[in-house]
């Protein structure tokens, strides 16, 4: 009988992956992009990253302390949010942008809806869009010591030519974490190899985006143009790190494909036909809002329901 000591109600299959482990892996996977951003943009970027992460963690701690809730800072989700938000800020932004964004992400987007697992929108992206609408001139000012002038996507939009190799390595203007495709893909490989994310959403996202660009970009199958569109802006960061957020992605398999395709098409529409050069954040936020509907129409049939009668 002693063997039955541990029998309890389901779930019976358990994984050693806890929330903190997963979040820690995401932080590790984001480190290449962060380090490259700091190397690329200098000490300003480091300060901004530290301030943003500190403000998200502190906001979560203070809110839970004041509301007499369980302190969940130890699950590293606030660190991930802070890091993602910081990677989405231009390095020239003043320090208080990080604080305002961090407080908004945690307080309004995450905690007021019930904390981790309850938020309907990616907190980092919600805060980025809040900042982008509120402080447009600060958030779109990519001038810094190393680079000046337009981001590659803006240059591409106005018909100028860009150096694709520089974009893949990351030696271009942009937000702290989005410039280097190599660093982001390295991080994404860590996540895929450890099983934290799979390729369903990023794959569907990138493939549908490429198809959209080929069809409507006006340049046909121009490989330089396509790779510039892929390497430029926040597409890689968004596809691998934000669209795959456990809380705000669909849980059904077909739903994830549908979600990825929706994001690809929306990003294409925003980039090609919208007034600004970039549209990844708005696309993912719109996708987040549609997740309940996507899950509803892709709900798998329960065993024994439906099908032909024998």
């Amino acid at each position, binding site marked *: 009988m002693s063997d039955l000591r541990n029998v309890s109600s389901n779930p019976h299959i358990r994984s050693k992956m806890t929330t903190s482990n997963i979040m820690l892996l995401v932080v590790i996977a984001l480190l290449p992009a962060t380090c490259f951003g700091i190397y690329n943009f200098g000490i300003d970027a480091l300060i901004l990253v530290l301030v943003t992460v500190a403000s998200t963690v502190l906001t979560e701690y203070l809110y839970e302390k004041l509301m007499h809730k369980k302190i969940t800072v130890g699950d590293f989700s606030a660190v991930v949010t802070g890091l993602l938000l910081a990677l989405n800020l231009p390095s020239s932004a003043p320090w208080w942008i990080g604080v*305002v964004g961090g407080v908004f992400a945690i307080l*309004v987007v995450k905690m007021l809806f019930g904390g981790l697992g309850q938020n309907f929108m990616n907190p980092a992206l919600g805060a980025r869009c*809040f900042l982008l*609408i*509120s*402080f*447009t001139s*600060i958030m779109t000012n990519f001038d810094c010591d190393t680079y000046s002038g337009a981001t590659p996507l803006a240059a591409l939009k106005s018909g100028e030519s860009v150096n694709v190799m520089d974009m893949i390595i990351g030696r271009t203007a942009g937000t702290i974490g989005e410039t280097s495709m190599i660093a982001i893909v390295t991080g994404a490989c860590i996540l895929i190899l450890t099983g934290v994310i799979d390729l369903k959403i990023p794959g569907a996202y990138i493939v549908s985006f490429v198809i959209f660009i080929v069809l409507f970009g006006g340049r046909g199958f121009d490989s330089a143009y396509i790779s510039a569109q892929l390497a430029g802006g926040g597409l890689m960061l968004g596809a691998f790190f934000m669209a795959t957020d456990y809380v705000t992605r669909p849980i059904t398999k077909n739903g994830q494909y549908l979600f990825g395709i929706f994001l690809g098409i929306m990003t294409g529409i925003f980039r090609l036909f919208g007034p600004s050069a970039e549209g990844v954040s708005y696309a993912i936020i719109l996708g987040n809002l549609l997740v309940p509907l996507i899950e509803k129409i892709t709900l798998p049939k329960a065993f024994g329901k439906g099908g032909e009668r024998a």
Partner: protein
Amino acid sequence: MNKAAERLYNGIIKENPTFVLMLGMCPTLAVTTSAINGLGMGLTTAVVLTLSNMIISLLRNVIPDKVRIPAFIVIIASFVTMMQMLLQAYLPFLYDALGIYIPLIVVNCIILGRAESYASKNPVIPSMFDGIGMGLGFSLALTCIGAVRELLGAGDLFGFHVLPTADHPWMIGGSSISFYTPASIFVLAPGAFFVLAFLTALQNRVKRNGEKKGRDMSKIQSGCSHDCLSCGETGCEHRFYDTQGADAPVGKVPAKEQKAAEKNAEAKEKEEQ
């Protein structure tokens, strides 16, 4: 507490149309980009509400039940037209700022709601005070929302430059200070939702604290029309009393009103026969 003061207190605090009843959201969200606009919209609505409540209360025994909504709308629309012309003549800056939202006061659900749930079943004087109370409550709420949005979104308050922005820095001893960067999202549509939600939460918090201290925070009844199906008083203690049979707390219904209800029922039965 006498009836007039009770109606004012009810409209401004207990049943504040914006923060408690959540009525009239369209002008609340659309015109509160500044405190002045909010105040102007609120006061315009208050005037229309007071006058329409008085007229509807005067005509409450004349208007047939079946066409009451069109009748209310005609009365309200007349007053709105008057207000629109007055604003256009004497306050053109406000008229331009509020734009389409002045004619839309006709379909403001606060006005129709008060006509339906209060003015059509109460005498003139309380109806008038109900209109004033609700109108002031609406003005107060809109001014608060407008003030917060204007302050955060532009650094101004009632058109005065309050916070030191880059365009209007503080000059102290010859040096200019400008530490505030306006967050323009607050003068755009999303800001209206943020501010409304936060102010409503704040108001609920204050109310809950009041309840903890033992103050009575329940709504004040606004009279009985004996038609529970179309009645909005969810907190009414004799709601659906006629469907509860013998257990109904009939004794709590005022004797006069109950008699009237019984008479109505008898008349209906006779008609059916």
